[in-house]
């Protein structure tokens, strides 16, 4: 394999390609400042994202991360294990790059007439770099740095509509809560470091297993909780979710899609890696007195409940999607809540699948909102009335996204949710609290159907207002939406490989 002739750090190629794309965009903007050549800028960003996606897919296909005994290339460690490229990392790189590509293509139209074209794309690509790096980070240091690399451009992106009060307010709130959370996160890191003396994830696990942290149970426990807080911020989980509704509502819609899909996925990859690798279940219980799954059980239930309940009576579509995104974070948290000392790769695999499917359907839904903003039809449910008569394709795609988000059978969202449910039930044999989680999943899904179908009803059943201008058909936005819709459907027959990849990634981590 060619991957072997390259130096070790080449395994990080997906992230490096993204970083390179970001620099190229800066160079372009340096050469011709204030360029508004949208095709060049969006094209460069899209090519970078797609190249990165291709490399990640190629690595997965070539067997990077698969154990050598199974004929794979094995896990590649870089910089003495500061980074690892395994199945999980590649899986999330794929999720991130797909979303990035969709966003970039959609932004082509959304940003028409906007001043900061180059800045926008380079920030998106840099944030994507951070997310891709997060996926491979294997030390609290690299995780923190990559996380900040994700967050800082995101703050700027949310507030990029400088004269839009909503955008600025969103940016401010996102930034302030983000700063607070990262302070808590880094303090948590310092406490974990204090208790163990190391920062690399596997070393932490070794120290804990050797009893090196036995005297520091409280310190370690507090540190873990603080790490959890930082992660909860990134994944928009309760109680660190407060920024999300405002940030998603105020930000440019493609950025909302980006944050709620890719950035959330990046948060989850940290959660999966940190908690599985650094604090293996069972051993950690001896030191801090309880297994961290308890925390995730609580967070999962509360998050999905708060998200869905708050979404139920929203009038603003984007805000409804924002809350529903919080609810979906709750679903994905089941993947961690359902783990146990001797397994749980099934439920975690289900969470991984959900994140991938979610990457399509949620991105698509937000991009539809972007389209609506592009048309200028308004923001509330009523403003969306009867859009289907004017834009049937986009509205059909939106119906697909919404039904998939609700978990209606023919679409991808049903499968991942179904696997989550069965996974939760299976985990209930070891941990009866999972029954409550499964019940909450069902109740919340039922509730979510209510508000998703409200939007479908508005789009397809209600009559359009008499005075509405002809709606344009922006190519980039349409292309991105249609691709997302097709993927949401096509992922159903293709679920075999996806499920395999997800479970493989989960297994690599859990065992």
């Amino acid at each position: 394999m060619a991957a072997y002739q390259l130096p070790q750090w080449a395994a990080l190629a997906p992230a490096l390609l993204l970083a390179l794309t970001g620099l190229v965009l800066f160079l372009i903007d340096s050469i011709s400042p204030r360029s508004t050549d949208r095709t060049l800028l969006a094209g460069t960003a899209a090519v970078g994202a797609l190249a990165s996606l291709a490399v990640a897919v190629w690595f997965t296909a070539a067997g990077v991360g698969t154990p050598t005994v199974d004929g794979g290339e094995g896990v590649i460690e870089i910089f003495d294990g500061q980074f690892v490229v395994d199945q999980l990392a590649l899986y999330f790189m794929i999720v991130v790059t797909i979303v990035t590509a969709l966003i970039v293509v959609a932004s082509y139209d959304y940003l028409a007439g906007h001043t900061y074209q180059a800045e926008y794309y380079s920030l998106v690509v840099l944030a994507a770099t951070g997310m891709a790096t997060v996926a491979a980070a294997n030390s609290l240091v690299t995780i923190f740095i990559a996380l900040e690399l994700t967050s800082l451009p995101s703050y700027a992106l949310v507030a990029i509509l400088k004269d839009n009060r909503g955008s600025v307010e969103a940016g401010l709130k996102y930034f302030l809560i983000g700063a607070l959370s990262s302070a808590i996160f880094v303090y948590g890191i310092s406490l974990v470091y204090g208790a163990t003396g190391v920062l690399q994830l596997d070393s932490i696990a070794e120290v804990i297993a050797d009893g090196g942290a036995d005297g520091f149970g409280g310190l370690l426990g507090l540190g873990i909780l603080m790490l959890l807080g930082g992660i909860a911020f990134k994944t928009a989980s309760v109680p660190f979710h407060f920024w999300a509704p405002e940030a998603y509502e105020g930000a440019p819609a493609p950025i909302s899609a980006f944050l709620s899909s890719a950035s959330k996925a990046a948060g989850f990859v940290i959660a999966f890696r940190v908690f599985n690798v650094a604090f293996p279940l069972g051993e950690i219980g001896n030191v801090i007195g309880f297994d961290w799954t308890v925390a995730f059980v609580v967070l999962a239930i509360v998050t999905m409940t708060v998200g869905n309940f708050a979404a139920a009576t929203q009038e603003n579509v984007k805000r409804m999607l924002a809350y529903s995104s919080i609810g979906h974070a709750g679903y994905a948290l089941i993947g961690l809540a359902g783990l146990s000392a001797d397994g749980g790769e099934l439920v975690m695999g289900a969470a991984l699948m959900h994140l991938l499917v979610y990457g399509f359907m949620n991105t698509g839904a937000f991009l539809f909102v972007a389209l609506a903003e592009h048309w200028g039809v308004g923001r509330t449910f009523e403003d969306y009335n009867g859009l289907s008569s004017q834009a049937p394709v986009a509205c059909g795609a939106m119906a697909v996204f919404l039904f998939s988000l609700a978990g209606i059978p023919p679409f991808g969202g049903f499968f991942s949710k179904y696997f989550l449910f069965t996974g939760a039930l299976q985990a209930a044999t070891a941990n009866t609290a999972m029954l409550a989680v499964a019940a909450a999943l069902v109740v919340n899904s039922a509730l979510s159907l209510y508000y998703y179908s409200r939007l479908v009803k508005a789009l397809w059943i209600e009559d359009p207002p008499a005075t509405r201008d002809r709606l344009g058909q922006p190519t980039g936005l349409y292309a991105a939406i249609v691709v997302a819709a097709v993927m949401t459907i096509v992922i159903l027959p293709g679920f075999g490989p996806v499920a395999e990849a997800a479970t493989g990634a989960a297994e690599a981590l859990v065992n």
Partner: protein
Amino acid sequence: MNDWIAIGALALVGLLIPLGMMAVSYLLRPTVPETSKRATYESGEIPTGGTRVRFNIQYYTVALLFLVFDIETVLLFPWAVVYLDAVESDSVSLLEILGPMLLFVAILLVGLAWAWRNGAVQWAQTPRQAAADSDRQ
């Protein structure tokens, strides 16, 4: 423990002396309330405007640039620490020692170039630039 008592005593003394002096001054001074005495500047200068004046935005960008290069040195510091050892060691080539640092600086330079080209260090604006700028908003 004794050491700590000394420190505590020092702190106590440190507090008592200024408080004591203020108390003595309060007891001894005459109190003659007058308008001119309560003015901000007893010299008779009349203050104009608020205390908070806006600075030119350029200060902000320059400050940010300063910050970037300030922090750069922080990040170069660990590299500098191991540099000599690495040069003496035979196992790492010079490229491997210098490469990362050069790359780091190169990336910074791209950023600097971008900032420069986008007018971050443009102290004064020609009317045309100003017009272009206002277009952007």
